[in-house]
């Protein structure tokens, strides 16, 4: 029962040293009716993965391998031209990163909505407007006012909601949100998350939320996938992953989150910095440089993402129990070694 099945997806970018993978052999399912959270640091490839779900990786990037099966559409990587344009926004609704800034400043929201309708050859534009108003009202916006507004007349949280209206107005069944709460303050973040959960349930969507904030996602997601260095390193039901993280990176991410409860001194920032296209390890595990559990084999063979118990997958050579009971990363701050400036 997966609405979207990503298999062995590899996305490469052309650089001065050749084609380098930003996403390397990622497999991920978006299950029908569930919210999947995809977390990772900057440069982990999560936004690239999300864009490839629209087959819209910008040049100099390309999808180099793998398939993306979307229910009712087929393999997105093989679509082109008109079919692809129809799928984008039609079957798959996408709320862009900084969607606050993805609206046209010169047109009212309503006019942009009509543009969307025309480009998707919607016959009944009145019905489209009515549906948009209805969606906006259900998200706590004043539909009439919003459609007559320019983007600068709306607050950040309101623009984010307008982004969701645009993504859903054509009855998309798959909703992808890229960093929906970044740049919003706490109160707006809480209300946007609330609304995402509500429209997800009301419209029976399959939702993917991409974020670097494991705290925000844990509030509403059903499943969690953790991405590092272009690989998915762990996934499973959210509550289970948070309680029993079996990948050292997941464990470190949870430990590095500033929380309102718990021991202030127990929290540790991740040492080192996340790899980018050029610094990611070519052989062995991509996380081994920052991993407190790394053993010899980690430098030689890359661990496969394997199911180790029902519903849970991980890509790590170290036993799950060792990671669970072992230490969180022992990074301290203030010392140069902790920052791990690559030599």
């Amino acid at each position: 029962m997966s609405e979207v099945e990503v298999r062995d997806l590899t996305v490469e970018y052309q650089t001065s040293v050749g084609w380098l993978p930003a996403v390397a052999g990622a497999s991920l399912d978006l299950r029908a009716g569930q919210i999947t959270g995809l977390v990772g640091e900057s440069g982990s490839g999560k936004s690239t993965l999300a864009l490839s779900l629209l087959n819209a990786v910008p040049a100099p990037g390309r999808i180099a391998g793998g398939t993306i099966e979307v229910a009712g559409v087929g393999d997105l990587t093989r679509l082109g031209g008109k079919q692809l344009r129809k799928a984008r926004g039609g079957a798959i609704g996408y709320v862009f990163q900084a969607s606050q800034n993805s609206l046209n400043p010169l047109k009212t929201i309503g006019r942009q909505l009509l543009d969307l309708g025309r480009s998707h050859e919607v016959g009944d534009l009145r019905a489209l407007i009515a549906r948009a108003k209805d969606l906006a009202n259900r998200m706590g916006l004043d539909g009439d006012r919003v459609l007559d507004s320019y983007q600068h007349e709306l607050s950040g949280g309101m623009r984010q909601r307008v982004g969701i209206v645009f993504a859903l107005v054509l009855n998309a069944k798959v909703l992808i949100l890229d960093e929906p709460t970044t740049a919003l303050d706490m109160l707006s973040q809480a209300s946007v998350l609330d609304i995402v959960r509500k429209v997800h349930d009301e419209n029976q969507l399959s939702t993917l939320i991409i974020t670097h904030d494991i705290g925000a996602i844990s509030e509403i997601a059903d499943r969690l996938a953790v991405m590092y260095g272009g690989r998915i390193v762990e996934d499973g039901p959210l509550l289970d992953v948070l309680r029993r993280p079996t990948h050292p990176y997941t464990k470190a991410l949870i430990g590095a989150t500033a929380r309102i409860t718990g021991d202030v001194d127990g929290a540790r920032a991740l040492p080192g910095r996340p790899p980018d296209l050029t610094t990611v390890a070519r052989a062995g595990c991509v996380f081994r440089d920052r991993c407190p559990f790394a053993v010899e084999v980690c430098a030689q063979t890359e661990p496969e993402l394997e199911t180790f118990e029902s519903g849970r997958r991980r890509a790590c050579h170290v036993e799950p129990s060792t990671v669970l009971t072992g230490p969180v990363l022992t990074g301290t701050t203030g010392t140069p070694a902790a920052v791990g400036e690559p030599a």
Partner: protein
Amino acid sequence: MIQARGITRTYQTHGSFTGDRTVRALRGVDFTLPDGGAVSFIGESGCGKTTLGKILTGLETFDGGELVVDGVELSKLRPRQREKYFRRIQMIHQDPYSALNPTRTVEATLGDPLRMRAREKAAAGEQAGSWRERAAELLTLVGLEPTAVLPKYPHQLSGGQRQRVVIARALTVDPTVLIADEAVSMIDVSMRLGILSLLRDLRARLGISLVFITHDVATARYVGDGGELHVIYRGEVVERGLTDEVILSPVHPYTQCLLSAVPVMRGLEEPGPDRTAPTAALDERTPTPGCLFQPRCPFAGAQCAEKHPVLVPFGLDAAGQGEAAAAEDGSGHVHACFYPESRRVVGVEVGAASA
């Protein structure tokens, strides 16, 4: 030591369509920042917390109240004379991506203020070492490897590293106070704690005091002991107390709404039983004679729309002549609400989390 007494700032906007509008960004903010201490301000966008930070660094003027730095009332001085006080108060900006000049290396960025500082020291007859040594010292202090970072341009550094460079730059002029305005909100969650504990370290090691401005209450817990938390709403402090105390037993409904908005890490935490949310969106246009939060308050009562509450300790009537008491007592937990009630809104750690 910085003392602020009743700082106000009002902006006049002249809109071409909407007509003139008066925005009261700050409506009388008091606080005391002891040497080596920490004061945090939390509030949502548009509550005036950034304006306050700018006033403290001299980037913005205030039109009422008094700012006292080390016993000197700044409004009595000429602008030129104020400079040396503001020099010792340095700002760490929100966005490390735009706070650094992209065409200058880290060495150039740190070099200018350091050479200036060395000339000043020499003029004052103090011992001034080489600025290069000082640059290396500062970078080491903020947790960067000098030889690796000095020749780099900002785009070659990660967000967290850039923010460390910004902090090192603030330290070049030997400040006694750092103002961190949303210093971690643009940084990856995984790197935030590193910056926060650096700020905490600077407090402990150099005795630098810290004004921490944020919308994320959780981060305010990490700036160190003895920090005081001010909850600011539409330019007015509505609750104040020790950080942990305010987080654990908030009494003002606005504080409770802010704390309820902090995401609960399900699996490790359970939502607080009294979680609440504002009943309406922020609307600054409608003037309210009573409590500013009343139109959005889930617990508003009869008095709230008519009278304006003042800061009082728990147990006193917010309508009373509490102003004097509140201004005097800097350490206690005070609030500005007619119907204060402690509610449990913050997530509770699940017992099994540590196992």
